[in-house]
């Protein structure tokens, strides 16, 4: 099946400043891709080009075989802007009814959408009285309208509490299962870690890494952290057996390169009864992110 979104050699300059340089990316139907990067890395610019809000300087973007901003592309794409804003004088229900009409859907579906995002209680209140999290939910509700082939979500979970975040990702999973492609940017790396198929790291407008989390881990080759808890009184013995380990709150912390992981584990297993517990901590997305974005900066 062809990809929903294809970007090749995309470059965007604002005068002398290069916002994006040679970015290539494709998103398949049903795939969830996370876009990571510092503020100003080019995430929002990339999204605006995909939406056809601003033109690219060079390179090509196609969405379901259509050009960005064309009527066909706009029908296929749903967007959630960073800090979703709406007119304060309208109620949530009125706003969603209007957005439904703009997509050619029946306004009667509005209440169902608001229920989906947990806003049914406040549907008839003016958006001016909403909290940031509630406005974000209105934004989510409008992004769910119709059957978008591609969802472009800019910081979708900012302002949401942890429970709402989980509900939100459950909604996304359901959409992806129906074949919708999802491109989202986020600062909350831990939630992206578990909820996306692929990760793209942008730094200063360049794509510095792309792949699934295991792939990125392998490529970065960051050391693995091991936490060994000793049985009462055996900590010094274990520390002797594992050079480089340091004692933190009764547990021994040590790190080893990926290649030596199994060997080190074997040595710990050899200590037998002296070891009460063992935790293996692979490099987190935070570590990977720092590794790749620093690599680009040098």
């Amino acid at each position: 099946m062809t990809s929903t979104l294809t970007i090749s050699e995309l470059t965007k300059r604002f005068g002398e400043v290069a916002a994006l340089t040679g970015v290539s990316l494709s998103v398949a139907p049903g795939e969830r891709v996370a876009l990571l990067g510092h503020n100003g890395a080019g995430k929002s610019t990339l999204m605006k080009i995909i939406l056809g809000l601003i033109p690219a300087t060079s390179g090509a973007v196609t969405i379901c075989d259509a050009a960005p901003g064309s009527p066909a592309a706009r029908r296929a794409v749903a967007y959630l802007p960073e800090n979703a804003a709406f007119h304060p004088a309208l109620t949530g229900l009125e706003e969603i009814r209007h957005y439904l009409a703009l997509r050619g859907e029946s306004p009667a579906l509005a209440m169902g959408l608001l229920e989906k995002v947990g806003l049914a209680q406040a549907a008839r209140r003016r958006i001016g009285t909403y909290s940031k999290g509630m406005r974000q939910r209105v934004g989510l509700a409008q992004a769910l309208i119709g059957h978008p082939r591609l969802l472009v979500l800019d910081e979708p979970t900012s302002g949401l509490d942890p429970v709402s975040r989980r509900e939100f990702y459950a909604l996304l999973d359901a959409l992806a299962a129906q074949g919708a492609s999802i491109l989202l940017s986020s600062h909350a790396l831990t939630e992206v870690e578990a909820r996306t198929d692929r990760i793209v790291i942008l730094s200063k407008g360049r794509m510095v890494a792309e792949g699934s989390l295991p792939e990125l881990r392998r490529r970065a080759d960051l050391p693995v952290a091991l936490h060994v808890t000793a049985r009462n009184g055996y900590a010094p013995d274990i520390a002797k057996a594992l050079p480089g380990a340091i004692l933190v709150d009764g547990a021994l912390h040590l790190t080893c390169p990926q290649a030596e992981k199994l060997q080190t584990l074997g040595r710990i297993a050899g200590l037998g009864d002296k070891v009460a517990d063992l935790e293996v901590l692979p490099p987190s997305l935070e570590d990977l992110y720092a590794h790749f974005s620093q690599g680009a900066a040098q």
Partner: protein
Amino acid sequence: MIRILSTARTEFRIALRNRWVAIALVLMGVFSLVLALAGSAPTGGLGVDRLSVTVASLTSLSVYLIPLLALLMSFDAIAGETERGTLPLLLAYPIARWEILLGKLLAHLAILTLAVLLGHGLAAAVTFWSDPTAVKGLPALWRLSWSSILLGATFLGAGYALSSLSRRPSGAAGLAIGLWLGLVVLYDLALLSAIVADNGGWFTTDVFPITLLANPADAFRLFNLTASGATAAAAGVGGAADAIPLWQSLASVLVWPFAALALAAAAFRKVTP
């Protein structure tokens, strides 16, 4: 079409809640009533019915009030969306920019139409009550009503254009008030002083009529005064109405709304969210 109507409905609702509908209706109603009650006093000597004279007064009122109302309603249309941050999302929807403009125009024009109908209706009622022969003035009143709405469309378009050009609502408001002062107040003053200085020369005979037709507010006044033959009751620049054929001022009244809206569409197309 559904998209335009939904936009219009939403804009109308916003205007209702922002009190723009109430403000427009009250302003037009009160001023029209005052003019109908007070302005029809000196009729006796002129030999025309009271309504025709009231129409001449209402024309002068509309020249000031309709552009002001239209600009006040429209200056926020694009700049407000930009500042609130609602524009990027709206433009990501499958709605063309001209459809957005047309939706907003429909809503704002509906409000202006309500205000004009209320004001003119009240004026007509008061006049009929004191002078049963005033029926003769009805065609003039009808002409004033539809040309007022066209004048409103012109200034709504101009307001959208200014709103697109300036990034902030405060800037757009400044430009709108500037445009109103310029076209409605200062323009006539400048023309009058030029005529006085020219003393019946080339400017007065050749340039002056064109400058009147080029200004939508002046063309509107000219059209209504010429058509109703009420130049006798008019003062100031309107007194020049006799010199310019009716079809010319009519053409200006009809063409300006489209020109202003085309300008607005061109300015809005340049806006990058």
